């Protein structure tokens, strides 16, 4: 399929966001702003134990507070939802804790009150008695531990590759995914050099500036959820399942999201909001504080053991990857991360002998799920860091080492899928060029040393997923696009309007993209994984083409000449004798895909496209203190054809800066009891304006995705891929110290520098 159009009229030129004025005047709609008549405010009481049996919950004092409507526990929830367990991959997460708590911060009870301050105050008066149980926090320990988070595994049945786990007991492993190719043991035996390292990443939180929020209300026809979600279609499906209602009785609508980054995916507060409104028979607002978000969803911490065989020329001949993903207490979408990202763990390299084992592991920590990159940043951190270590050991330039080993167009990836429209070498070369990699480089002097690093990572587009769209032309020729893609800042409304405009040959200003509302916008899997431009872009392209086909049919029916331009207003006026009627086109898109083989992970077609991100970093390190500054950051992506250059640049830049946070300072810090110490911006630092690299530039290589809409593919995550490893490489290049755990805090480097000169910092302090 070649879906490109040679000359693009609207696409390819920069265009600002359609909602720009609403956003700068403070008038853009967010669910955060919504108030419903007679609504009650909910406040959760959360577990103080990482793993414990609930012996009793005493709500009497809380209920007695004036203004409190009711106090709700799991027992009450089960009156309206007898099976109160939800989740996209496993039905393991209770709406409120049932019998046991599985992490510190798990919701145990809820106060409903007329006023949010009263709800909060009353929540502190609930008394819960626990019997503490042993808990497990580390993902590698938990994979083998006798301490089991859940007695029995309960896959949702949605994903065929999880079905074999149903009923499994005595384990914390919620998915074991593997890839096998060639003979990796033989490769190690025959190798000139074998390298083995372990890399770690930490648990972090998305911290969208609009904290998660859901409101629910009962209506004549069923229930309506107003919710800041990235996946309205999934919320409808899951609420309908929990209630045992048809989807037609559940309406889910959203607005602009104040950031998402994966935090607002699948189902989060919606099931609780639904249960509460059913119990109270009044509208209910469930709004989290920033602190509470840390207890709701996070990014997987990981341990990645990577062992690589290399021949005398520097070619990688074998690679064994073992990845443990710390999934926290509930699976959320973790098993998908384990598989969909897990199969790329060997990196974008041509390797004949491969073994990958990727484990999703339950622990007694807050749940981990999707986070911009969907596991890829954790993997790139390891395989690109090791690429630099190997290149250094072998005395090969790190860019040259990558050039020797990168997968080329037409070669098969470890899974057997042939690389196509994957600009790996293009991204690497452009990054190196922008870094002046071949030019002499000022390495600093004295206690200020400079270094540089480069890396490249890739991601497979999550598949198979479906998008459906509708295009409605009004009798004045203006147009509505019905799509459930959620605009959370990535400018999807703008891009989707541009795609419709391109096909319909009208101005984007005449197009309104309707905010997701499952009563009026058709099914879309979700807004995640940089999938919308590709999937929804295709669906809208097809819908607009369908509308054009219908206009052509109408033109013929009206006896108009075939060279008459397709003008909906003129056609409808002629058809109805007045400004009346609509022309409706629809489109549906699901890419081709072949599931990987259970034993080998092989698939002829494991992804519709590969998204590619490269990063070049220059740092200056103070060798006395370990403080370092990023002097230069060059971000380069392959996103296929660039549909809106300014938006693409802001996505690349935003993803890269966000990743700086995880690379350098963000870290959820837990004590030995699993208690989170820093659920606040006071102690959990995210990048601010003063943290920008001295120079940051972004670029997209000229590529054309053969099966993309107008040659495009997604770009929301690619800027994040290679940031962390490039920083580690630059530090190593500057001062000869290699950091293998994130975040790379200044104090961590300080300690490592002192350890390297046999003058460890601990000794001098005592």
């Amino acid at each position, binding site marked *: 399929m070649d879906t490109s159009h040679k000359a693009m009229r609207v696409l390819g030129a920069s265009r600002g966001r359609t909602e720009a004025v*609403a956003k*700068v*005047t403070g008038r853009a709609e*967010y669910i955060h702003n919504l108030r419903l008549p007679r609504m009650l405010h909910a406040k959760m009481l959360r577990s103080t134990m990482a793993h414990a049996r609930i012996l009793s919950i005493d709500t009497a004092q809380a209920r007695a507070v004036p203004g409190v409507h009711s106090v709700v526990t799991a027992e009450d929830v089960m009156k309206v939802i007898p099976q109160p367990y939800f989740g996209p991959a496993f039905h393991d997460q209770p709406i409120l804790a049932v019998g046991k708590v599985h992490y510190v911060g798990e919701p145990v009870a809820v106060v409903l009150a007329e006023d949010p301050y009263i709800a909060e105050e009353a929540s502190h008066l609930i008394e819960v008695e626990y019997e503490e149980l042993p808990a497990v926090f580390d993902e590698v320990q938990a994979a083998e531990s006798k301490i089991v988070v859940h007695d029995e595994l309960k896959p949702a049945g949605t994903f065929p590759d999880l079905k074999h786990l149903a009923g499994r007991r005595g384990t914390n492993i919620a998915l074991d995914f593997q890839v096998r190719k060639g003979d990796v043991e033989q490769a190690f035996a025959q190798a000139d050099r074998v390298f083995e390292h372990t890399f770690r990443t930490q648990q972090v939180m998305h911290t969208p500036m609009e904290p998660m929020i859901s409101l629910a209300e009962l209506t004549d026809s069923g229930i309506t959820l107003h919710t800041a979600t990235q996946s309205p279609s999934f919320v409808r499906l899951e609420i309908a399942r929990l209630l045992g209602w048809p989807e037609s009785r559940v309406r889910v609508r959203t607005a602009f999201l104040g950031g998402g980054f994966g935090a607002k995916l699948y189902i989060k507060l919606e099931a609780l909001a639904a249960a509460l409104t059913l119990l109270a028979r009044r509208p209910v607002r469930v709004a989290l504080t920033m602190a509470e978000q840390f207890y709701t969803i996070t990014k997987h911490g990981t341990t990645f053991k990577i062992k690589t065989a290399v021949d005398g020329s520097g070619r990688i001949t074998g690679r064994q990857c073992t990845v443990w993903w710390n999934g926290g207490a509930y699976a959320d979408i973790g098993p998908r991360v384990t598989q969909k990202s897990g199969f790329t763990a060997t990196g974008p390299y041509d390797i004949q002998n491969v073994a990958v084992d990727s484990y999703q592991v339950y622990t007694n920590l807050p749940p981990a799920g999707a986070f911009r990159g969907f596991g890829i940043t954790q993997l790139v951190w390891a395989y690109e860091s090791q690429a630099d270590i190997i290149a250094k050991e072998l005395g090969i330039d790190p860019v040259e080492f990558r050039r020797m080993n990168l997968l080329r167009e037409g070669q098969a990836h470890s899974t057997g899928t042939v690389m196509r429209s994957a600009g790996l070498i293009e991204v690497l070369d452009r990054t190196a060029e922008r870094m002046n990699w071949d030019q002499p480089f000022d390495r600093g002097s004295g206690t200020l040393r400079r270094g540089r690093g480069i890396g490249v990572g890739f991601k497979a587009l999550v598949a198979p997923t479906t998008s459906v769209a509708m295009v409605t032309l009004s009798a004045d020729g203006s147009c509505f696009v019905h799509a459930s893609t959620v605009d959370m800042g990535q400018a999807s409304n703008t891009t989707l309007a541009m795609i419709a405009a391109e096909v319909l040959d009208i101005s984007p200003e005449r197009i309104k993209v309707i905010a997701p509302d499952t009563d009026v916008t058709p099914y879309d899997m979700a807004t995640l994984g940089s999938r919308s431009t590709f999937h929804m872009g295709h669906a809208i392209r097809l819908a607009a083409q369908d509308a054009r086909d219908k206009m052509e049919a109408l033109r013929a029916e009206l006896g108009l000449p075939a060279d008459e331009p397709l003008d909906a207003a003129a056609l409808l006026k002629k058809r109805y004798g007045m400004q009346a009627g609509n022309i409706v086109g629809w489109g549906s898109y699901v890419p081709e895909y072949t599931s990987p083989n259970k034993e080998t992970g092989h698939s002829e077609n494991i992804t519709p496209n590969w998204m590619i991100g490269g990063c070049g970093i220059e740092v200056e390190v103070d060798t006395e203190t370990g403080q370092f500054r990023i002097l230069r950051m060059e971000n380069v992506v392959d996103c296929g054809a660039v549909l809106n250059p*300014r938006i693409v640049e802001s996505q690349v*830049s935003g993803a890269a800066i*966000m990743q700086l946070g995880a690379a350098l300072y963000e870290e959820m810090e837990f004590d030995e009891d699993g208690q989170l110490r820093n659920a606040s911006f006071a102690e959990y630092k995210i990048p*601010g304006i*003063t943290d920008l690299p001295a120079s940051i530039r972004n670029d997209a290589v000229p590529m054309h995705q053969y099966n993309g809409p107008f040659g495009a593919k997604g770009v929301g995550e690619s800027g994040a891929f290679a940031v962390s490893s490039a920083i580690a490489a630059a530090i190593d290049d500057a001062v000869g110290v290699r950091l293998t755990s994130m975040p790379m805090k200044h104090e961590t480097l300080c300690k490592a520098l002192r350890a390297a000169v046999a003058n460890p910092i601990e000794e001098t302090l005592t």
Partner: protein
Amino acid sequence: MSTTRISFELNGQPVWAEVEAHHSVLDVLRNTFELYGARESCGQGLCGCCTVSVDGKVVSGCLALAIDLDGCSVLTVEGLDSGGELDPLQQAFIDCGAFQCGFCTPGFLMMSKQLLAQNPEPSESDIKHFLAGNLCRCAAYPEIIQAVQLAAHRMNKQEQV
């Protein structure tokens, strides 16, 4: 709970409200006046999403108490285009694409407005220093710096004419 009546000027209009002692500026703006441009994000005065101007000084609307507004003049993002025309900063934010999700944007605008009132020709480092307390998780920071510079440039040029 007892309430207190406060009177103040809101975006140029005289207004009054009944507030309780613990109500924040955000509470009164949102619940009484249905102005949603100032937003609660961190709730601790650390992110700047709730920034409003009180008597010409920027405050964190999530921490400042509504009761203290009595007799004050309050400017929110909704007041920036009260004449029907966008403020030069708003236009510059649009022209530079200085936002993505837009949730933090009103806070950045109010803070930048204050900066330009104090310092009509801020350097890049002045801008960074002044906006250090505003967080944007979409990380539109490079574009925000450009936008503040562009607005300053346009405003200075206009004054010279």
